């Protein structure tokens, strides 16, 4: 099996699906001849041509708006938003249009659009090349939200997303685009949407993470192991709908939960996970569910290393739940 990084896995998913389904098109800023700022679409233009790999003017509302029209007509567009931070000009098209088309038409019109976008910090990108806006979309009924943490899942989840019929926001962890490498099958396979993965089994504390934070959670679990603490790490993978069963099962086992995310804390997705877990497994909880998150500031430049959750902070939270 070949080894790929996340960029290569994404590209392989796109290429695989474009070969399998002539309705799949890719569009966005510089995705064509240039192959994308992160090279995720490199080579696709040469293989599939300008009609299916479309360089657009700089306008996210146009990228998503036209993708919606393509989907209504029968295509399966996979628009790229160059950075998650630039998704807001398309916010109305995503939230008021894409997410609502099926519902508002009583099921007559569907919008199978998969929006790919790199998210997260750690690349010294400052305010506008670092954001993690998942919570905004998780609060939007009609969307699915997917956030892989490694090459295998990136390809399998992207293929799964492109093969189902609901709009998906597919958030890619740009910091580890190239750093995260692993075995990835050539050709077709899918990773089921809506299913979490236990990336490390454990018994005393559950740590829940997704995207770039899974790596941090795993490092914290390794630290914990050195300290004799057994930590279970759950990679949520799909954020909407999220795998509540996996969360509850793990909580019932461990009774202690720590949630890690990069986005600002207040009203982040961590809050929803806490609410959902305590509604269903209050009797099992031995301690409050803790969050290790980005701070409630815009994403900083110079102090980004202070802003981002790190294994030490996760480890402190693990200890705190145990000592409660």
């Amino acid at each position, binding site marked *: 099996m070949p080894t790929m990084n996340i960029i290569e896995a994404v590209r392989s998913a796109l290429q695989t699906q474009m070969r399998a389904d002539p309705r799949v*098109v890719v569009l966005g800023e510089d995705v064509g001849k240039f192959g994308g700022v992160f090279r995720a679409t490199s080579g696709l233009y040469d293989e599939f041509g300008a*009609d*299916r790999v*479309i360089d*657009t*003017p700089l*306008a996210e*509302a*146009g990228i*998503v*708006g*036209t*993708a*919606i*029209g*393509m*989907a*209504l*007509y*029968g*295509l399966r*567009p996979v628009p790229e938003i160059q950075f998650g931070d630039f998704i807001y*000009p398309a916010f*109305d*098209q995503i939230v*008021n*249009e894409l997410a*609502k*088309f*099926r*519902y*508002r*038409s*009583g*099921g*007559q*019109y*569907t919008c199978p659009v998969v929006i790919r976008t790199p998210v997260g910090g750690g690349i010294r990108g400052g305010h506008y090349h670092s954001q993690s806006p998942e919570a905004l979309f998780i609060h939007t*009924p*009609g969307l*699915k939200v997917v956030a892989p943490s490694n090459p295998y899942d990136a390809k399998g989840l992207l293929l799964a997303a492109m093969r*189902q*019929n*609901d709009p998906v926001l597919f958030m890619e962890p740009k910091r580890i685009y190239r750093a995260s490498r692993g075995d990835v099958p050539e050709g077709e396979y899918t990773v089921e949407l*809506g299913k979490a993965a236990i990336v490390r089994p454990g018994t005393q504390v559950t740590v829940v993470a997704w995207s770039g934070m899974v790596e941090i959670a795993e490092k914290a679990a390794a630290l914990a192991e050195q300290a004799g603490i057994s930590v279970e790490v759950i990679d949520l993978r799909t954020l909407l*709908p999220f795998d*509540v*069963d996996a969360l509850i099962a793990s909580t019932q086992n461990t009774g202690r939960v720590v949630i890690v995310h990069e986005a600002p804390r207040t009203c982040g997705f961590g809050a929803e996970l806490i609410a959902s877990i305590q509604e269903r497994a209050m009797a099992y909880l031995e301690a409050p569910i803790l969050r290790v998150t980005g701070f409630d500031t815009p994403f900083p430049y110079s102090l980004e290393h202070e802003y981002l959750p790190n294994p030490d902070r996760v480890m402190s939270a693990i200890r705190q739940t145990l000592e409660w």
Partner: protein
Amino acid sequence: MVAVPASERDVRRVLDDDGKPLPGVRTPSIPDATLARMFEVLLQTQLLMRVAQTVQLGGHLVAMGEEAAQLAVAPLGANDWVFPGQGDHVAWLWRGYTVQQLVDQTLGNAEDASKGRQAPGHHAARWLNLVSISAPAGTQLPQAVGAAHAARMLGRDDVMMALFGEAATSTGEFHVGLNFAAVWQAPCVFVCRNSGWAGGAQAVQTAARTIAAKAIGYGVPGVRVDGNDALAVWQVASEAIARARAGDGPTLIEALTHVIGRAPDSPDGNPWLEPIPALFELREEPFPKDPLHRLRGYLRHAGLWSERWEAELVGRHFDEIARAVATGENKPEPAIETLFDDVYEHLPWHLREQRAYLQAQPRAGDTRNEHRSET
């Protein structure tokens, strides 16, 4: 220095104020049956809007005066798609959406094709290639462009038409829609109903002398047409559709109209209708620049109209509307469990849970409900 505005006087007209063809102007050759149907749909629409004032439709269908401009859809083929704005009733009726369907949507009853999901006037008819309407102005423009590009990519010659009011030209969506269409040379026709009446007040939307002049900034043709002149509208729309179908790219049409009422956007008090309710009483005289009056004049002149025929149409459509309203009012509202359908193709766990919760709620007449309040 670049400052060559489109001439304000360069407006395509075919008919004079009373429907007589203007001297020296070519009239489009439209089959008699089509002309009759155009008249019938305009009449039907006006009746519907008048009735909407007097019955339980809450004034929701009213956008009087822009009917002929909406006939831009008339030269389209059935495979072409329409992305309408709010209040484009003619577009729906012309393509075969029935008065009953229109009324069912307005009432949001269980037989609404959209399952009662949206506020009145926000129709959807997939079977007619009429795209689901939303309220945010201008959003349908880039969508139409995407569909147009898709059609071309799939080797079909379908044309997409987007309709919208002049205030929508102020939105970012108008700009990106026109720009993408021009860059892609997408088979798309943009029809702006310029009534100079956006919202309640006459808010100024642009300092350009015309809406058509905006086409220059995208490198596409822009045309102005008398939007109360059904024949002129047919003519410019046909030309733009032919151009799009031939692969020659998009066109922006500015149809000058004269709105005396519009679909209210505020369900709480309908303030935008306040100044004009009297106009909507059923009455005989045409209102100024009434597009129906002008088409009637043309048909009469062409020997295609008689008082009897119109009376018959009025009677028939009035009855149909009245029947549709009566029927629609007696239909039940959608079943509560349908509230959760169509958010996704398949119901995810959290919506299954929420549906079960709603179904378990005590209801009136349900004796489990000991603490039921009045609210």
